[in-house]
């Protein structure tokens, strides 16, 4: 292994990063389902998954096993190649976009080679992210058509029309950020948001700069919710409407692939929103001496979580919970201790803040899903074309005006 | 890597586009063969832009893509009209001017 690493260090390091990130991504996709069900349940004054494992933590595992063992039905007359291709395309494209996201500024050492905390760092990273998103329309369009059935066809036509429409305003709403950062490179966009106005207000794109990108953020987030087919824009795939939309005729693993693809695009969009508008991996605390204690916030966070889990776990209902929860709590306390070591602390700062912000956005996604009713299709298209598109164009004009005015 | 590789590929793709244009009877497939020919030409443009180290080739590709998109939109609208009025997508059946 070391001989291989010495001969092709870049390849081996990239492979390790890909495998680790893929594993983390799949686990977080599975636990996104748990997160969503729990949050929506609590919004609706009930508990959500509670029985399968302590606090329903093993529910994703049970769901995964169920999907694997369910009968795989293919409708008669379906075009076999396209029927299998569609969910595969959705999932693979959605997961590929995680390769372009930078998680932190520092470099880590794998097998002696120093490598940044991202799989790649393309100069046109943002543009390629949008390219991947625009290819994602095919999964939906081909799924509905290949099912050889009325309702999936209608659902997929509506859904792909919706995705194509909101892609426009999503791409345009980001142009303001690009004008302010001057680069399409995601890491450079983050570093352009460094610094603190008046000593304590972080210079994130939504707060500072020639024009605070509030309009841009609003357009981007709403377009992204529509682009990922989530409530309130999920008419094409809602169960009460077109009988389930484009994934009606899919069962077992292919259905699971559609859902994983949807959650993966949710995660990608949340990562994009934090990078473009909220400073990515930048900490909200100034990096001065007075705020040196802010460096220990990750350790404190994990430590508190661990202690809370231990305290709650030893009095849990089931025997399994009484063992598992404190074990997880202990692991978190161990992580907190490791994070107080200086080297690891420096490296973990960036990813911690990044993942915290992404988690907040995912929570907002699920919060919106649990709260708002869905739009009718014509209302949906009217919002995309008549409201969001002009507003994003106006954002571009205003931002360029602000830049020209403040540069004189 | 010599440019000729890219130019040969462009020529081959263009030729295959012409073959598809001549031999296929579904009007949408004929349209797609036009797009294939345009893509082959774009490849040649970018290859030459690289060879002469100028960027004008890429500008031209930009405009070709835009024009191809506009043409595809209008062309497909016409195809929808034909399908609605004649009921068929087979170009050999749209021949009322012949008889």
């Amino acid at each position: 292994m070391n001989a291989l690493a010495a001969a092709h260090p870049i390849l081996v390091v990239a492979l390790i990063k890909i495998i680790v990130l893929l594993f983390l991504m799949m686990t977080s996709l599975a636990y996104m389902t748990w997160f969503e069900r729990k949050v929506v349940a609590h919004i609706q004054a009930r508990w959500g998954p509670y029985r399968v494992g302590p606090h329903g933590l093993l529910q994703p595992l049970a769901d995964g096993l169920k999907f694997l063992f369910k009968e795989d039905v293919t409708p008669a007359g379906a075009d076999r190649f396209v029927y299998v291709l569609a969910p595969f395309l959705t999932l693979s494209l959605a997961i590929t976009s995680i390769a372009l996201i930078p998680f932190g500024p520092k470099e880590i050492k794998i097998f002696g080679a120093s490598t940044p905390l991202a799989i790649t760092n393309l100069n046109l990273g943002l543009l390629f992210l949008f390219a991947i998103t625009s290819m994602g329309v095919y999964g939906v369009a081909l799924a509905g058509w290949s099912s050889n059935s009325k309702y999936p066809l209608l659902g997929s036509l509506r859904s792909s029309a919706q995705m194509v429409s909101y892609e426009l305003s999503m791409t345009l709403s980001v142009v303001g950020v690009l004008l302010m950062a001057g680069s399409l490179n995601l890491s450079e966009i983050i570093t352009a948001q460094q610094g603190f106005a008046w000593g304590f207000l972080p210079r994130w794109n939504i707060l500072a700069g020639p024009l605070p990108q509030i309009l841009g953020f609003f357009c981007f987030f709403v377009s992204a919710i529509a682009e990922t087919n989530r409530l309130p824009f999920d008419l094409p795939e809602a169960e009460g409407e077109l009988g389930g939309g484009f994934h009606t005729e899919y069962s077992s693993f292919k259905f699971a692939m559609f859902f994983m693809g949807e959650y993966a695009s949710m995660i990608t969009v949340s990562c994009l929103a934090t990078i473009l508008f909220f400073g990515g991996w930048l900490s909200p605390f100034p990096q001065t001496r007075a705020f040196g204690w802010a460096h220990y916030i990750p350790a404190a966070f994990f430590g508190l979580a661990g202690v809370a889990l231990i305290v709650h776990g030893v009095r849990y209902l089931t025997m399994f919970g009484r063992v598992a929860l404190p074990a997880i709590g202990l692991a978190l306390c161990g992580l907190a201790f490791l994070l107080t070591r200086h080297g690891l602390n420096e490296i973990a700062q960036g990813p911690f803040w990044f993942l915290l912000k992404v988690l907040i956005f995912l929570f907002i996604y699920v919060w919106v899903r649990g709260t708002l009713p869905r739009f009718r299709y014509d209302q949906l298209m009217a919002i995309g074309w008549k409201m969001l598109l002009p507003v994003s164009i106006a954002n571009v004009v205003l931002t360029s005006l602000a830049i020209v005015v403040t540069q004189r | 890597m010599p440019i000729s590789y890219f130019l040969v590929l462009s020529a081959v793709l263009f030729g295959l586009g012409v073959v598809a244009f001549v031999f296929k009877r579904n009007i949408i497939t004929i349209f797609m063969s036009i797009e294939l020919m345009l893509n082959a030409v774009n490849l040649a443009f970018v290859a030459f832009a690289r060879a002469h180290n100028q960027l004008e080739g890429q500008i031209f590709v930009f405009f070709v893509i835009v024009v191809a998109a506009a043409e595809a939109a209008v062309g497909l609208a016409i195809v929808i009209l034909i399908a609605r009025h004649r009921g068929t997508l087979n170009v050999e059946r749209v021949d009322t001017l012949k008889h």
Partner: protein
Amino acid sequence: MSAETAVFLVLAAVAVAGAVSLILQRHPIHSALSLIAVMVSIAGMYLLLGAPFMAAVQIIVYAGAVMVLFVFVIMLLNAGQEERTNLSRMAHYIGVPLGVVFLAEVALWVARGSTQFTVQPSAASSTRGLAELLFKDYVFPFELTSFLILIAILGAIVLARREES
């Protein structure tokens, strides 16, 4: 064989296979999928030729929007499989081999005529250069294309509108 040539060969194989599949497939949706494969591999070749911006534009506009339009229309019109016709005996036995020979001859002449150009190693970022060219020297054609797109949108809407009878 350098890594670049190997990547080029893979991409070229995908492109030619896609183009041949476009011809051979009977259902227009399969032809559309083959064309998407060709476009994505051509985008990869733009990357090889040092035009990353054009690669992204190719995927976003061509493979991600124009081909979606094609797939939409195929789905809307419910285009079925093409009927088999018998290609005339002449075309089958003489036409196809002659076509291949002709293609090979074209390829040979193209290859012979252009060996004096080589791909230079990577220059600076093309996005900035493209933007400067597009908005300084070629701003008039740029504005004209915005007109063109507007006319195309209007034309498509008017043409495909259902008449209110």
